């Protein structure tokens, strides 16, 4: 499904290897600046000047067009710094770009209601995206990723701006998506609890290198945490 071979990007990523298959939920952990977001952006086709290989569905992403990649991978960014000037439904329609081409004809009008329902945001359908709360926005961003109908979904710290209650609800929604088994999820997060709830395995990054793959429980073990995050935790560094 997804095979990454000796992926290097500038000086940020150094020879990353791993494979994942459909239905899996993979967590990516690492200290700030370890290359987690860069890794996701390379897979999402946002950064294209990498060396090494990213294979999706048996095709190397370097030879795929932006639109072809967008039919395979969707991406939920960490922070949305821009004001999105659309209503929720207009915003979801933008997710269909990979299937439309530059011409404005819709090949097939998808049923956004079912994904909106699934993410619990059907009532927000006609609201302006700019008027949504942080929790609502995060759900709408994931809805947009699902509306893109890709086998691979990338999530970059999706709960970092949510309060504990909203984060908990959000994680449960992700868990139900995972149980459908239709997607491969890659999620960057710093939260050990949600990683244990969701992930099948964890990829540890540090300084742009892969430090290994672990079971999620590993995140609660202080000795193993220091392997990834270094010994600086707790102010002894």
């Amino acid at each position: 499904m997804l095979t990454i071979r000796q992926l290097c990007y500038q000086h940020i990523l150094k020879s990353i290897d791993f494979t994942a298959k459909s239905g899996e939920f993979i967590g990516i952990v690492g200290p700030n600046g370890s290359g987690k977001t860069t890794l996701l952006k390379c897979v999402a086709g946002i950064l294209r000047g990498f060396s090494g290989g990213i294979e999706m569905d048996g095709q190397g992403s370097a030879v795929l067009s932006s639109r072809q990649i967008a039919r395979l991978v969707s991406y939920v960014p960490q922070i949305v710094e821009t004001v999105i000037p659309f209503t929720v439904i207009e915003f979801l329609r933008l997710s269909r770009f990979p299937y439309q081409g530059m011409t404005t004809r819709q090949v097939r009008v998808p049923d956004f209601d079912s994904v909106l329902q699934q993410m619990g945001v059907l009532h927000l359908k006609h609201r302006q995206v700019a008027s949504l709360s942080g929790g609502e926005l995060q759900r709408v961003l994931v809805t947009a990723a699902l509306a893109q109908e890709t086998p691979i979904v990338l999530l970059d710290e999706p709960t970092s701006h949510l309060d504990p209650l909203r984060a908990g609800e959000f994680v449960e929604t992700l868990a139900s998506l995972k149980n459908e088994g239709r997607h491969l999820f890659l999620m960057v997060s710093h939260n050990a609890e949600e990683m244990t709830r969701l992930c099948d395995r964890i990829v540890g990054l540090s300084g742009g290198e892969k430090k290994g793959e672990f079971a999620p429980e590993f995140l609660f073990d202080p000795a193993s945490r220091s392997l990834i995050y270094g010994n600086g935790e707790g102010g002894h560094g």
Partner: protein
Amino acid sequence: MRLRYFSGIAVLVALTLLLPLFFPVSLVGRLSDTISRHILWEIRLPLILTALFAGGVLAGGGLSFQALFRNPLATPYTLGISSGAAFGAVVFIVFIHPGGSGAAVPVFAFAGALCSAMLVMSFTFRKRMVSSETILLAGVAVNFLFASVIMFSQYVAAQYEVFQITRWLLGGIGGAGPLSVVLTGLAFIGLMTALLWLAPGLNLSTLGDDMAASRGLDVRRFKLVVITLVSAAVAITIAFTGPIGFVGIVVPHMVRLKMGTAEHRRLVPMTMVAGGLMLAVCDTIGRTVLFPVTVPTGVVTALIGAPFFLWLLSRRSTLER
């Protein structure tokens, strides 16, 4: 809804096309006379058509640059195209044909505009990813470069040439004729068609480079295509109109506010028609208020546009808290 929308536009355009009959001096009842007919068909009609097309191109250029660079202050001149055109005009007025007639000025203005656009693009599109900030800053630099050359030329030029330069820099639809109507008309139709075709990409651009790319937009190529198209269309119009300000920045904002949408398939036609109407009306006002003296169109659009723009800025800052 759609019918009302289109019929509303049609009525406004029709009314605007009737303006030459009444302004600056009414020709109603005098059309049996050849001179009046000549004034209407050979002078006023080409003027109003050129204004309609040029205003549309400027507003369409502003709309697409504001989306492309995610910058509400972007105008079709942001990348230095107006100072490039002015540079071309100044080169002709001062160095090539000092003190002579200005018939070839549009050719040089067009060449200068293309030069500035190519200069900006050649410096920014070398890398794989081009940030909007880089392109905008390159535009600022090119603007300053040409502006300084223009100031230098004015310093060394003769008095009459300085007057000609100043007059050109004010912007105005001076020598309108069949050629300006056909060329600006082609630029208008070409740009409208292209922008309608590119509308989904413009919508994605407003989300920012990362979100646009993850939805399958080849951001670099898209920027290159839009900048090239807008530059070509604006270069054609600016050759005939000079650097008329404020239509390109204000009209897209007005239309966005009025229509309450960011969907470019709807914004593009409305903005381009509104830009044309604004320029045609401003040009008519400029010809009428001090008749027989003509106030340059660029002065009228700025007089109307600047206060509006200040109001817009104050509104914007309250929105940002």
